């Protein structure tokens, strides 16, 4: 084989490896649907199709052993399709094992390593699962459209492709052109289908664009493109600054300059978008982990996903895979109780683990929650207290975060999956690497939720530039809530507080928090973390600008208060601050100050004003509920929650809220029905109702407005400020 030939074959193999990965993911996902009882002919047929396509692809790219295993898998599924074999756990296990084997074999085949024996084993196991003899002589059970080599003979490399193969252009037959018009329709439907899939909570099969519209591009090429566009943007800024300095022309007065900047911005957005993939592309792996671990631990666990439309930079998502896998496994192992324990506690025997994703401004928030036993904070405190006396003094919230410490475990036995005390600290470390952060909430007996917030991309950020301690800093605009004129603060409960929208917010000097002196007495910038707001006084406000954010390199430790830095047109370096890290640091410094005094003094959370408008948030998803609660509470509203329409009506009868924000898809009574029920009551006729949904179809929108909603917000176009302004607008009209 000449090097050139082997190179091209290997290229196809790599391409096939990528494609097979996606197909196997889909296969596993559908298989688990099947296990949940969804053995519809469509699901079975689709399973069969995926196996069949993998088999064909493997054969075409010269992976005969992989093709044989896929073929055995296909045979097994064919038995199910022909209703000659029922769906039971043994079948599911066999198929999963087959999928795992194929996954393991493909890289070996790509690397040119010997994998024949392993493939033979995997094939035998699948044959046994069919119920027939280990080596099948009866080829009648095979796909009828597919000539297959006998397993004993080496597979010929000239085998015809059984299906139109998406990978090798070399196989394209002039006689069989794809039907472009139809496939275009299918691709156009992708976005819509994803949006509509949300309500079905993972039941829908994700639409897949056909190979003719998809181009697989090595990620590094896109990275290079993004980098170059970033450099071009930076060079343009330098050009602007040179124009101003040398020619004394304000660049923004030049149409040509403005055009250049605008085109570059659009280009950048497009290039960044090319790197985006749905957060839920991780779901099949997680679903599989839940399923496997549930079986291993004898638990019944349902895995739900929500937020199919949330997308994130591929590089960021890759870094999230392990942390999410860890959290999901923890939820099954530590969170969800055994079925009999759940029954004793009046819970359904089947526990639920949810993966929810949502875009909030320039961040994606991903939550992993369970309805299990919650985290025993006193045990965490006690365990940590054995090595660290200060842990014993901590309040519940602080103690809960001890679970992220290295080496801490409260599991009394090591189970092979968890209990080793390694993990959550690693999760936090992985998140640090992508400038993400993690928060945890836990209700004893009710469940636990881990919430991860990560930036959607890691390159350009629109920032507010301020000066503190004599140095310029950038604060990402998405975390800036307000800018307040210089003002005096009052001491409340031992903390310096200022007022924002009638609500107290803690205030600190930015330079003091950064350890650069105490001198900031100018305006205050109120920044919002995931759940808290904090005001920082600065020396002065400078301007707003786009900062191409770079990391500070591997040599330096991660600094929670610093997100990165950008090189400015004049060559100086502008540090970009991180809201959550700053707030955390300010709180720590603040509580350090106060620990000198006697304990006591409620935090600002307890001092909510009495006259704040109240909002009833109705959503069956804990994540969405809690996200909205934190958004509105941060904005100074009082928030109550309900999990469905029925419960919402009960809440409303107890106390009329000033506004209702409801999801559409909920058990018992959905959002449309709730809105209609509210409108039927004369006393509630003027109560503003906003429907917040991921169903963006015109029909849904019309139905929402027909049933009397005042606003209809589609989650895919949703951001925190849009939601807040919609609420403010409606409340303004109402008063």
């Amino acid at each position: 084989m000449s090097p050139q030939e082997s190179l091209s074959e290997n290229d196809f193999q790599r391409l096939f490896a990528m494609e097979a990965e996606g197909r196997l993911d889909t296969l596993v996902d559908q298989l688990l649907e099947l296990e949940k009882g969804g053995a519809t002919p469509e699901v079975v047929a689709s399973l069969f199709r995926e196996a069949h396509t993998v088999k064909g692809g493997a054969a075409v790219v010269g992976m005969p052993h992989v093709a044989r295993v896929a073929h055995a898998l296909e045979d097994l599924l064919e038995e199910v399709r022909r209703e000659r074999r029922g769906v039971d756990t043994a079948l599911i296990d066999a198929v999963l094992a087959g999928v795992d084997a194929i996954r393991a074999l493909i890289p070996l085949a790509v690397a040119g390593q010997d994998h024949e024996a392993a493939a033979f084993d995997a094939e035998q196991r699948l044959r046994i699962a069919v119920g027939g003899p280990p080596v099948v002589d009866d080829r009648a059970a095979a796909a009828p459209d597919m000539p297959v080599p006998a397993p004993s003979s080496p597979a010929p490399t000239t085998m015809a492709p059984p299906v139109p193969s998406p990978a090798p252009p070399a196989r394209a037959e002039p006689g069989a052109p794809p039907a472009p018009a139809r496939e275009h329709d299918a691709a156009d439907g992708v976005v819509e289908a994803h949006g509509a899939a949300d309500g079905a909570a993972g039941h829908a099969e994700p639409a897949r664009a056909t190979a003719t519209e998809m181009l697989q591009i090595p990620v590094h090429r896109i990275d290079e493109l993004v980098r170059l566009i970033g450099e071009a943007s930076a060079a343009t800024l330098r050009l602007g600054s040179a124009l101003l300095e040398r020619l004394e022309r304000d660049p923004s007065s030049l149409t040509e300059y403005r055009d250049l900047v605008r085109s570059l911005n659009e280009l950048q957005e497009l290039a960044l978008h090319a790197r985006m993939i749905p957060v839920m592309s991780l779901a099949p792996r997680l679903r599989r982990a839940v399923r496997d671990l549930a079986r291993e631990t004898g638990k019944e666990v349902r895995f739900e996903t929500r937020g199919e439309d949330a997308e994130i930079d591929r590089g960021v998502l890759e870094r999230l895979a392990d942390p999410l896998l860890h959290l999901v496994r923890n939820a099954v192992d530590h969170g969800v109780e055994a079925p009999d324990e759940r029954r004793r506690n009046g819970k359904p025997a089947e526990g639920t683990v949810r993966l929810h994703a949502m875009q909030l401004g320039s961040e994606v928030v991903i939550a992993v929650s369970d309805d299990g036993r919650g985290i025993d904070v006193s045990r965490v405190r006690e365990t940590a207290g054995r090595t660290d006396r200060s842990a014993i003094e901590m309040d519940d919230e602080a103690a809960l975060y001890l679970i992220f410490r290295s080496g801490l475990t409260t599991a009394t036995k090591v189970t092979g999956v968890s209990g080793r005390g390694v993990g959550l600290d690693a999760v936090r470390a992985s998140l640090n690497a992508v400038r993400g952060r993690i928060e945890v909430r836990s209700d004893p007996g009710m469940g636990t939720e881990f919430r991860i917030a990560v930036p959607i991309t890691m390159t350009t950020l629109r920032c507010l530039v301020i000066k503190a301690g004599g140095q310029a800093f950038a604060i990402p605009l998405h975390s800036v809530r307000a800018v307040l004129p210089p003002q005096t603060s009052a001491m409340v409960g031992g903390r310096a507080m200022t007022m924002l929208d009638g609500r107290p917010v803690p205030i600190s000097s930015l330079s003091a928090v950064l350890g650069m002196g105490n001198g900031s007495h100018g305006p205050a910038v109120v920044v919002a973390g995931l759940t808290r707001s904090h005001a920082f006084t600065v020396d002065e406000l400078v301007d707003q600008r786009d900062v191409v954010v770079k990391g500070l390199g591997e040599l330096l430790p991660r600094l929670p208060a610093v997100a990165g830095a950008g090189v400015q047109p004049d060559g100086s370096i502008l540090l970009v601050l991180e809201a959550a890290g700053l707030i955390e640091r300010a709180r720590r410094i603040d509580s350090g100050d106060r620990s000198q005094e006697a304990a006591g003094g409620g935090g600002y959370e307890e001092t909510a004003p009495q006259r704040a408008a109240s909002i009833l948030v109705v959503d069956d998803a804990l994540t969405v509920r809690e996200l909205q609660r934190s958004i509105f509470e941060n904005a100074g509203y009082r928030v109550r929650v309900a999990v469905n329409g029925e419960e919402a009506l009960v809440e409303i009868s107890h106390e009329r809220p000033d506004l209702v924000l409801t999801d559409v898809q909920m058990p018992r009574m959905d959002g449309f029905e709730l809105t209609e029920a509210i409108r039927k009551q004369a006393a509630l006729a003027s109560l503003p109702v906003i429907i917040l949904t991921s169903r963006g179809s015109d029909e849904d929108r019309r139905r929402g407005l027909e049933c009397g909603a005042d606003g209809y917000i589609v989650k895919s176009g949703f951001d925190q400020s849009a939601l807040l302004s919609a609420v403010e607008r409606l409340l303004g009209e109402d008063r």
Partner: protein
Amino acid sequence: MASAPTPRVVSGQLALLIPVGSDTYAVSLETVREVVVDPRVTQLPTSPAVVRGVFNVRGDIVPLLDTGLLLGLRPVMEEPYAVLVETPHGTAGLVATDMPLTVRLNESVGHSDIEGTTETYLVADARLAIALDIPVLLSPARISQ
């Protein structure tokens, strides 16, 4: 880009002498990218004390490290020169308080006990130069300490 293992200083080799206060250190010339005169340093608040700040080298953001503090000695008071060295974890700047010079090293005159250094060499003007062990000295763990 993955860099080859950083060569350490050996006698007979060209080295760059880095004056820091009254002391002189030596690094293999092969690890040195360039010397920046009067770097424009941006303070990096909340970072460890050894980090004097960050500065821009043709678009790259490079940390500037206090050579004295890194060795557990007295901190430097100013940063008139930055010696850019390549480490397995990226480029870093080391503060020099006087103009760094290139010399060919004679035989070692003895082992150095300071962690992150290797041998002591006699250089011109009867000065002693202590050779720095860049991969050890400039490791993320050590900088975080």
